[in-house]
């Protein structure tokens, strides 16, 4: 279920990219897309009735049913990269605003 939801989020992000001209809104759309993607990755680690993948005194055996911890680790990296890109994009947006006085890509002219 959550997988469908995350894919819908991604599509919303893509819709944003398709429909918006405003730089800030484009960045927001990219973020929505990334959040959807991250949720999707988290969701693939889910195992029904799985345990927390930590060896404790209660669950000592590796034969037990654990959820997959790897996607969570991956998502951390992905989030970090997303933050970096967003920061860069916002910096660019500010530069563009300084130069053109607008956030609207169409008003910036050029081919």
């Amino acid at each position, binding site marked *: 279920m959550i997988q469908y939801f995350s894919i819908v989020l991604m599509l919303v992000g893509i819709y944003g990219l398709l429909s918006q001209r405003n730089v800030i809104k484009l960045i927001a759309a990219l973020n929505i897309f990334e959040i959807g993607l991250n949720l999707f990755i988290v969701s693939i680690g889910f195992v029904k009735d799985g345990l927390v993948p930590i060896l404790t005194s209660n669950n000592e055996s590796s034969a037990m049913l654990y959820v997959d911890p790897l996607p969570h680790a991956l998502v951390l990296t992905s989030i970090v990269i997303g933050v970096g890109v967003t920061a860069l994009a916002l910096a660019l947006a500010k530069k563009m605003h300084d130069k053109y006085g607008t956030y609207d*890509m169409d008003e910036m002219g*050029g081919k």
Partner: protein
Amino acid sequence: MNTSFIILLIAVPLGAAFLSVLVKKLGKYFLGAAIGFNLAASGILAYDYVSPVIYEIGGFKPPYGISLVLDEYSLLGILLLNVVFALIAIMACKYIKKYEVVLSVALAALNGVILTGDLFNLFVFMEISAIAAYILTTMNKNIKYTFNYLVLGTLGSGLLLFGIAVIYNMFGSLNIMDIQNRMAIISYPVAGALVLPLALIFTGLSVEAKLLPFSGWARGVLKDSNSLVGTLIVSAFSAAVLLAFGRLIDSLFVMSDSLLIVFTVVTVGTLILAEIAAFSKKNLREILLFSSIAQSGLVVALFLQGLKSAALLVLINNVISKMILFTLAAKIGEDNGTDKLEDLKGVFLKNKVLGFGFTAAAMSLIGLPLFFGFIAKANVLVSLFEANNIWLPMVILIVSVIEGAYVVRMLTTLWNTGEEGELAKAEDAKQYKLTNKVRLTIIITIAAIAIVAAGILPLLQMNDWFNFDILSFLTDGLGGV
């Protein structure tokens, strides 16, 4: 062989980047040291190379940890990349200032892209190199193109990650070799189920590899770029991405016939449309950037046909010749304020040596005999014919007529003065500026001589130069020295 050089190829530039942040003044020395180290390390690795090595980071056995793979393929990749990167940095060193950190990161990431044996790691390196590229393109002073690049690049790498996640979901592994093994074992009709992830990965990589229609960013970013940024993107970045593309196609792309056809349509379409677009352009850098897009299309198309060696030859030819061509085009454009062909008549009259370099590279690009490009082209065609493929050679040959036409137009204009219908006269040449020539001249001369030598020697030395396995040549010919 000291395998730790493999990880150091990534770690040293990364370390240099951190140090440059800390001590800004020494940035260029750190960068220079990192580039020098990478050159030396890739040389040593090539010299000592015997058989494929898998370097396990942190000692985790694959498939659990991240592993770096050094085989003939990635060896060729790092040699090419580090040499090209070093040459570009030397030729365009006046732009390096303030961008040392980014360049160091880019160097680390590009080496990582070539070496990594792990899908997610590949995504990370791709993304880092892309971010480095975004920042580098801000040098062009036209931020909206950079923003465009950023949006498309991020979306592309998002799709790549999506595809990787689906692959992980299907096979439970991120190690490329491991996935390959599992694909062989799993009995359900893999090809059909793989359509989604493969299409996503293909799309994601295509954005950086500049395939149509995913490469809308390329024109804006490259058409005004300087000799550092533009050249890096059309040669070093594109080499690394295409090599990664090739590795994935080689190992993961288990394609049904229909998927192969769709992919081939995209790549061959890129080849045709981009060459046509290049033909219609009148500015040096625009011509070259479209030509670069077209060559990427050809390389990926050849990878898809399973012709790894031929694809690599085209790739090498394209990377080396584009390095020369784009550096000079950008240089001419910067120094004279325009790179419009008709404003640059006879620019090489006073710069003959650079002109020869440009000419050699251009002729290699279009694959004329006695230049390396011909060896590459002959190999491509022979291997396609041997695979009983008739229509792709036809397309390639027809397209190369168009390609030849615009390259010849470029060459004849840059060498000769005079309006149409008038005799070319040396006196008519305008005074063109070309600054900082010494370093440029030396490097371009060496590269041009290499292109010519690599075009003539095989004809004289090898009986089967038209059936030339670059990967085994690398180990037998160079590694065995």
